[in-house]
């Protein structure tokens, strides 16, 4: 049985989960800590009006199981935290990072590298989506491309907004990458970041190379654990 761990039951998580379940993925472990809000409904397509106020995980699992009863859905209540990340990803064939903040993204990058686990980082803000796959070898990794999170004073996700269909594109590409990992074709998709611009409809893939000084994946890495000090909350874009 191939377990996919999906961190974030939101605008990217929903379309990714649908694509994975429809493709026959037998088990999904989903993590989130939010409740459904009206402002989520344009992009978090497993939820409807009747779900507003419910824990996202409950609404997510119900909707997914109605459509795809053969996919086992396991719920992890809570965000990925330094203290819980390794347990959250344990046993996964691939992890999808569909989180809404940089602290979680860097945490999952580090946890998956330390565990030798492939991870797909998918993000969307306003009209832009990005997706990057990292193999179990972990090189090149998310930290090769993004050395640090933006600082304070940047607009957050709630104020920046995001177009619903852009999340759908990000979720679909993330699911595609995860399925290729499950099919043993991870080398087809690593070493690149896909960007989608929802205003111009331009989809591009640009190469990502291993950064010699990367603290996570270089030959003598300096990141060996999930020190909470490394994952302080940051805002979501430049």
């Amino acid at each position, binding site marked *: 049985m191939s377990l996919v761990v999906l961190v974030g039951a939101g*605008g990217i998580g929903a379309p990714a989960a649908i694509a994975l379940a429809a493709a026959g993925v037998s088990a999904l472990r989903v993590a989130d800590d939010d409740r459904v809000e009206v402002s989520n409904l344009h992009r978090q397509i497993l939820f409807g009006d009747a779900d507003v106020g419910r824990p996202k995980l409950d609404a997510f699992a119900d909707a997914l199981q109605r459509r795809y009863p053969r996919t086992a859905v396991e719920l992890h209540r809570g965000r990925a935290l330094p203290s819980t990340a390794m347990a959250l990803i344990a046993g996964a064939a691939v992890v999808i990072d569909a989180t809404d903040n940089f602290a979680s993204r860097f945490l999952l990058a580090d946890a998956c590298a330390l565990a030798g686990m492939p991870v797909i980082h*998918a*993000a969307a803000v306003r009209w832009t989506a*990005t997706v990057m796959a990292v193999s179990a070898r972990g090189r090149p990794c998310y930290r090769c*491309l*993004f050395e640090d999170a933006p600082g304070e004073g940047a607009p957050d996700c709630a104020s920046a907004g995001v177009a619903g269909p852009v999340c759908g594109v990000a979720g679909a590409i993330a699911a595609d990458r995860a399925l290729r990992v499950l099919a043993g074709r991870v080398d087809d998709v690593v070493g690149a970041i896909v960007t989608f611009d929802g205003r111009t409809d331009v989809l591009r893939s*640009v190469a990502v190379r291993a950064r010699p000084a990367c603290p996570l994946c270089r030959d003598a890495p300096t990141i060996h654990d999930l020190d909470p000090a490394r994952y302080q909350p940051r805002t979501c874009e430049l």
Partner: protein
Amino acid sequence: MESNVEVTVRVPTPLRTLTGGADEVKARGATVAEVIADLEVRHPGVKDRLLDEKGVRRFINLYVGDEDIRFLEGLKTELKGGELLTIVPAIAGG
């Protein structure tokens, strides 16, 4: 003296408030640094969003064509004209 070398800069959504909404703009410069300086003249505020006192901000990636400038000559990367300079920022929404 203004450079004769002109490139196209692909502007990510978060920076389009500085380019009047344009997703692509033209800029001149014989190096990436010169192009950014020219962008700042044409679209004030762009430089500060891309660079800090140490160079390219750590959550920004600049590509000339398909090549990350980290693996070229960084901000000193020379341009011939006609290249596409792409800005890829870190984003985190989901």
